[in-house]
């Protein structure tokens, strides 16, 4: 068995190409030196708001929490120039509540599924969860790939499982979480990206992480994935979207991610249809910076609804 997985690994790596980690880190360091000011800053901040998947994924989520989240998603701030977010992201049991509040508004309901975050249940259970969420009205499904299978070299299985979830989604869009912290190497992230994209449709996404481990989205793993998306697009014409999730807490970081998109994928990906931020506290920092640009004064966190900081 080790022999088979060895061959499959080197075949896959050969097909998609290797990634040099130090090289990627150096490339993305340049994104972080970009200085985005004035009107271009406001543009970027508003774009980031419109790309946000406002998320709550806690064991203690209740309909009340969902209501609060959805109100914020629909109208993040009193400023009429601030757009609504792209979607709310919730557990399957909360989909109905969310749909009742945001259905038809333009803000989508995204549901995690497939035994998020670990994925460690039978495949049939994972599929059933997807169907259930879709039936409850989820416009988008965020799934996790089978990391155990990936790391044992069972690449066909990983891909087939994703294909099955695509089918179960029907008309709903699919986002495929690779869980970069568990894949560890950039070679693995690139390979997993291609495995997923091979069975995705235009309008689907690949996503960095569940947000439930200690290492989530960074400029570097975002870069590995958007380069994969670019290469796949150039080869096949299929445009897959990207969603970095977890670890993006400040507006400044978000702007750097957008610079990466601008310089790697180009203008066609600077839209909520092809790029999302999986975040919760990021939204208020975006609002805080937008308000600062508008008034000229630095803002305190508690001026914004749902802010956690009281100090």
């Amino acid at each position, binding site marked *: 068995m080790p022999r088979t997985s060895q061959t499959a690994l080197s075949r*896959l790596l050969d*097909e*998609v*190409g*290797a*990634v*040099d980690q*130090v*090289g*990627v880190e*150096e*490339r993305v360091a340049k994104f972080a*030196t*970009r*200085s*985005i*000011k*004035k*009107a*271009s*800053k406001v*543009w*970027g901040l508003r*774009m980031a708001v419109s790309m946000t998947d406002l998320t709550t994924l806690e064991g203690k989520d209740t309909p009340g929490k969902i209501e609060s989240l959805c109100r914020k998603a629909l109208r993040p701030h009193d400023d009429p120039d601030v757009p609504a977010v792209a979607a709310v992201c919730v557990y399957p049991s909360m989909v109905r509540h969310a749909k009742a509040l945001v259905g038809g508004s333009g803000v989508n309901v995204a549901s995690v599924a497939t035994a998020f975050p670990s994925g460690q249940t039978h495949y049939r259970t994972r599929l059933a969860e997807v169907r259930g969420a879709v039936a409850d009205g989820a416009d988008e499904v965020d799934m996790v790939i089978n990391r155990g299978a990936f790391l044992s070299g069972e*690449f*066909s299985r990983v*891909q087939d499982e994703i294909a099955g979830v695509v089918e179960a989604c029907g008309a709903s869009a699919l986002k495929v979480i690779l869980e970069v912290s568990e894949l560890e190497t950039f070679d693995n992230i690139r*390979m997993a990206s*291609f*495995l997923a994209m*091979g*069975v995705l449709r235009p309008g689907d996404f690949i996503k960095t992480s569940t947000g439930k481990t200690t290492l989530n989205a960074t400029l570097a793993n975002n870069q590995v994935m958007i*380069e994969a998306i*670019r*290469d*796949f*697009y*150039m*080869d*096949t*014409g299929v445009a897959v979207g990207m969603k970095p999730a977890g670890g993006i807490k400040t507006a400044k970081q978000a702007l750097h991610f*957008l610079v990466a998109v*601008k*310089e790697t*994928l*180009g*203008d*066609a990906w*600077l839209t909520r249809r092809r790029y999302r931020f999986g975040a919760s506290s990021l939204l208020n920092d975006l609002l805080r910076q937008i308000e600062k640009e508008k008034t000229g004064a630095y803002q305190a966190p508690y001026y914004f609804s749902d802010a956690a900081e009281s100090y």
Partner: protein
Amino acid sequence: MAATRKTSGGTRPGLIFGDLWEFDPAPETADPKLKSRYDLFIDGRFVRPRSGRTFDSINPANERKLAEIALAGPADVDAAYRAAGRAFRGWAATPGRERGKYLFRIARLLQDRAREFAVAETLDGGKPIRESRDFDVPMAAAHFFYHAGWADKLEYVAPGRIAGPLGVVGQVIPWNFPLLMLAWKLAPALAMGNCVVLKPAETTSITALKLAEILQDAGLPPGVVNFVTGAGETGAAVMGHPGAAKVAFTGSTEVGKAIMRQLAGTDRKMTMELGGKAANIVFDDAPIDQAVEGIVNGIFFNQGHVCCAGSRLLVHEPVAEQVISRLRNRVRVLRVGDPLDKNTDLGAINSREQLGRIRRLVASGVREGAQMYQPPCRLPERGYYFPPTLFTRVTQSHRIAREEIFGPVLSILTFRTVDEAIEKANNTPYGLSAGVWTDKGSRILRMATELKAGVVWANTFNKFDPSSPFGGYKESGFGREGGRQGLLDYAHLA
């Protein structure tokens, strides 16, 4: 299992790098604290040149005058050497531990004023503020800091021998990394106990004379370091002065040869760091995006005004199309413009003369049948600018494959086998640096063994460190700078 479906031929989808999200200007606003006139720095003081003559330093970004610089004549150069000679006894007798502490002070003071120096460097030379801020100035400080620590460890420089200073050294440096080249020259010379007479390049004298202020603040004894500003004549006077125990020159191969001829018949020690036409070699198993980034760093860093620039891309035929198409996309997002804008990637060409040279060689490339690609970019109306340029269908016989352009122009050739890559890479009178991009470790080591270059970068490019020796083979010069090896060139071994 379909991982990636490679299309062969047919129309390929394209990416849009347009103006959907235009960046606003983001100028660096720190004050460079420039003076309107800079004098010579001799014997610890700023002094007027004997002739009273000055020349103008202009900002290549907008062709406006920045300052007047004193023009040193032979009498001034002589005065500088005499001051250095007088200071030498005391300086050489200063215990290494104390000499080192002066160099540590210089490093720290430069770090304190880093932003001010970065802006001054950008204004005087044209390089983007991002580079002077993030590379030139910190690296210059690091050179002083590193060499400071050698001053009291000279017994380790040459095992079995006692390493001491040579005396007064004459140094001439180029305009492409003014402050950094100054640090590369001063730091090892001073650590070894030598005294210095140095001439900055005529288009970039300002940061040297600002550093003279730091030398004063650091309390460096007068005469240990002297700066004489001027052009070719002044340079010849510095190189040819009988008071020099050793000379060090960084600049073009042409001028290097002239200096060697000038000094024939003397016993003057010399080191030369001259031009290059480095091959950046990409194999089919290279991580392609990182290789592309390395290619871009290799030729567009500092507008290509780099002796070790990767100005020839040798790409393995099987991946040539892929690499070139990604390279084209990458250069489309390079930002050319005002060097003081924090988002600028390519700044101004250093001088009108240099711009003329670049244009002439590029024209020769077109004339000789190579295929030119330049991404659309809006160049400022005033100032000296040149867009990033790629030439494909280049062969070894093209002038643009053999002559050093010293600009943002990449000549792209292909190869079929490892042996052919080595042949083509070595097929040049130069031998300063080379790049190798491959995932295979043994191949890296073989290439490193066979490439006739003083610096080989594997899966990276343009990496420098004060501890890492730098210098060339063949007509790229001789002698090394950096590390223990670099110190040997400033040492008298007893």
